[in-house]
């Protein structure tokens, strides 16, 4: 019998709530096959449930614990993650709680040797980074999941078995009141780095694991420093290793450092050992002040991914699908992009709007993304935690040069997680039309935001579904009119958006949405002449564009994007 912890976890700043187990109908003989069962109510599992609900798909969400996870864990959300949260309708509380930031400073032998301001376009709503503890990420998502009214949230429910055939999967769920069988058309495995589902299916990840253990310690302390990424290489108190410091809401600070080789996690987490090192860090950053420990853990770096995120009726996402290094904030931010790619595809397949093979493109796109992240994150990892003497010596040479030369400084770049480009996706179409544009947002790339006014951005206005941006000066072309009609008639949701160079008033009602673009900002960002059309997938990636609208091509592109047809 599964006995989840019923005592709220200890924290000096966060008040854990216990969500009681509720006996499900299956335990009283009232089973029915759920369209989707999501295993794991971490950030990725919950966001998947929320996005499915936005497409009208109900789900059952299984979580083995009775409360949100322990510790601040994933603290940094990228701009892309904030855009995904906004599109899912849940960004508000994150913005109210989180601390936004855009630069990092690196120190060596007490000198600032590298400063990096992450790119920020004035057309972007969100800054490059937002720090927030994972307890809050999960709390806000729990509230949002429950607000959908379409998710059966089952706390204290642990998956202990899984079988599947071509038609459905059968989960065995253990609870405080005993076990039951739960049939599902589809299973989303969002059960984290130590995924039980991955183990049950005997799937192996590919890639490498890095030696070297790191401690993460969260302390409450009145440190007088801005929100930024602070990195100290090779400090006197921890020779050869490095220290990262990040500010979090509620006066909490994340301290992250590599342990001397050979030291075990158990030794490092001894209270007196940990306390002495925290004092050394505070000394190093010139902030010797009283502090209290909230949470500490040990981690090591991996660049591992499953070679296929689909196994029959089971779809892997987030850490269950890949284990990525902490450097460059790859964990939750990659997972959010996974579920943003998966949710619309799964919703369309379940609703009969697309064939099952659309789900294979989820795996293709996101495995490719994971492999690129492993490659890129591996570089940061080899610099931050040199795996052997060669890399250590080269890293030390770069640091030594950083005090008198700048030519090698960009090796200290920490390569922050960024949205992946699906340039080679089978869901893109009309490459010749794509190539005919002079710049703009090409097929496969994520759409870009545009500031329209105070607290008013293009992405704020977009409803769930495909977006069909139609650019016009004063008259809507015949081709565009036919496209708007085709969008309205399409089986999948397509929002037609007229971007009008003139003040759009006269065009009101001509499409689902009319946006006045008198300054031509949207047209410029998308390099779109009057008469052009851009088709954007529900996860915000461009999948086709034409300089001249053509309803026939639009119908083909929409079919290709739903995997109903091979690319044109």
């Amino acid at each position, binding site marked *: 019998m599964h006995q989840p912890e019923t005592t709220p976890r200890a924290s000096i700043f966060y008040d854990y709530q216990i969500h009681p187990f509720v006996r499900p109908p299956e335990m009283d003989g009232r089973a029915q096959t759920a369209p989707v069962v999501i295993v794991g109510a971490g950030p990725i599992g919950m966001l998947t449930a929320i996005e499915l609900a936005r497409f009208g798909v109900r789900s059952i969400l299984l979580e083995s614990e009775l409360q949100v996870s322990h510790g601040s864990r994933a603290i940094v959300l990228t701009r892309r993650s904030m855009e995904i949260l906004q599109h899912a309708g849940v960004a508000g509380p994150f913005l109210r709680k989180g601390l936004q930031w855009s630069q990092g400073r690196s120190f060596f032998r007490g000198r600032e040797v590298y400063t990096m301001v992450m790119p920020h376009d004035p057309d972007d709503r969100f800054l490059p980074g937002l720090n927030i503890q994972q307890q809050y990420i999960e709390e806000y998502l729990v509230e949002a999941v429950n607000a959908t009214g379409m998710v059966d949230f089952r706390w204290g429910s642990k998956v202990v078995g899984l079988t599947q055939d071509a038609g459905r999967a059968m989960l065995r769920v253990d609870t405080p009141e005993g076990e039951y069988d739960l049939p599902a058309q589809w299973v989303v495995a969002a059960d984290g780095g130590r995924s039980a589902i991955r183990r049950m299916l005997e799937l192996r990840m590919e890639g490498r694991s890095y030696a070297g253990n790191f401690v993460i310690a969260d302390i409450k302390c009145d440190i007088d420093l801005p929100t930024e990424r602070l990195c100290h290489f090779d400090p006197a108190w921890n020779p050869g290793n490095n220290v990262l410091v990040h500010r979090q809401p509620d006066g909490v600070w994340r301290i992250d450092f590599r342990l001397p080789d050979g030291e075990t996690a158990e030794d490092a987490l001894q209270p007196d050992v940990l306390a002495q090192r925290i004092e050394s860090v505070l000394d190093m950053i010139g902030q010797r002040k009283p502090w209290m420990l909230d949470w500490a853990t040990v981690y090591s770096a991996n660049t591992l991914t499953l070679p296929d995120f689909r196994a029959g009726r089971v779809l892997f996402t987030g850490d269950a699908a890949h284990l990525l290094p902490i450097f460059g904030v790859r964990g939750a931010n990659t997972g959010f992009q996974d579920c943003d790619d998966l949710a619309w595809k799964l919703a369309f397949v379940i609703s009969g709007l697309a064939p099952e093979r659309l789900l294979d493109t989820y795996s293709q796109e996101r495995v490719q993304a994971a492999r690129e992240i492993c490659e890129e994150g591996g570089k940061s990892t080899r610099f931050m935690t040199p795996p052997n003497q060669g890399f250590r*010596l080269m890293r030390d040479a770069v640091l030594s040069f950083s005090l008198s030369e700048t030519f090698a400084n960009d090796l200290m770049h920490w390569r922050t997680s960024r949205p992946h480009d699906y340039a080679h996706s089978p869901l893109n179409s009309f490459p010749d039309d794509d190539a005919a544009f002079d710049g703009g947002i090409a097929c496969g790339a994520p759409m870009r935001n545009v500031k329209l006014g105070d607290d008013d951005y293009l992405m704020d206005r977009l409803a769930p579904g495909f977006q069909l941006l139609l650019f016009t000066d004063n008259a809507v072309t015949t081709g565009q009119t036919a496209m708007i009609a085709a969008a309205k008639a399409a089986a999948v949701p397509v929002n037609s958006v007229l971007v009008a160079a003139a003040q759009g008033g006269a065009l009101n009602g001509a499409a689902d949405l009319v946006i006045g673009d008198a300054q031509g900002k949207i047209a410029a960002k998308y390099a779109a002449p009057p008469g052009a059309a851009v088709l954007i997938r529900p996860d915000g990636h461009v999948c086709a564009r034409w300089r001249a609208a053509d309803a026939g091509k639009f119908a083909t592109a929409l079919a290709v994007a739903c995997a109903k047809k091979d690319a044109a």
Partner: protein
Amino acid sequence: MMEKKFTNPQLEEVFDLIAEAIDAAGEDKRALFLAKLALALSNIIGDPAAVRRAVEAASKDL
């Protein structure tokens, strides 16, 4: 200050290449390998004054 001649991808490529070659040389031959590498690069540059500037830059902050 030396002029930066590499793009970042080139810089990363060279960093990885040399790091792996140092390991391949083995612990007791590491210094010998690095001395040979410095000589080979000097020969490729073919300019003693430039090599002198590199030696000066590399000698700082050890």
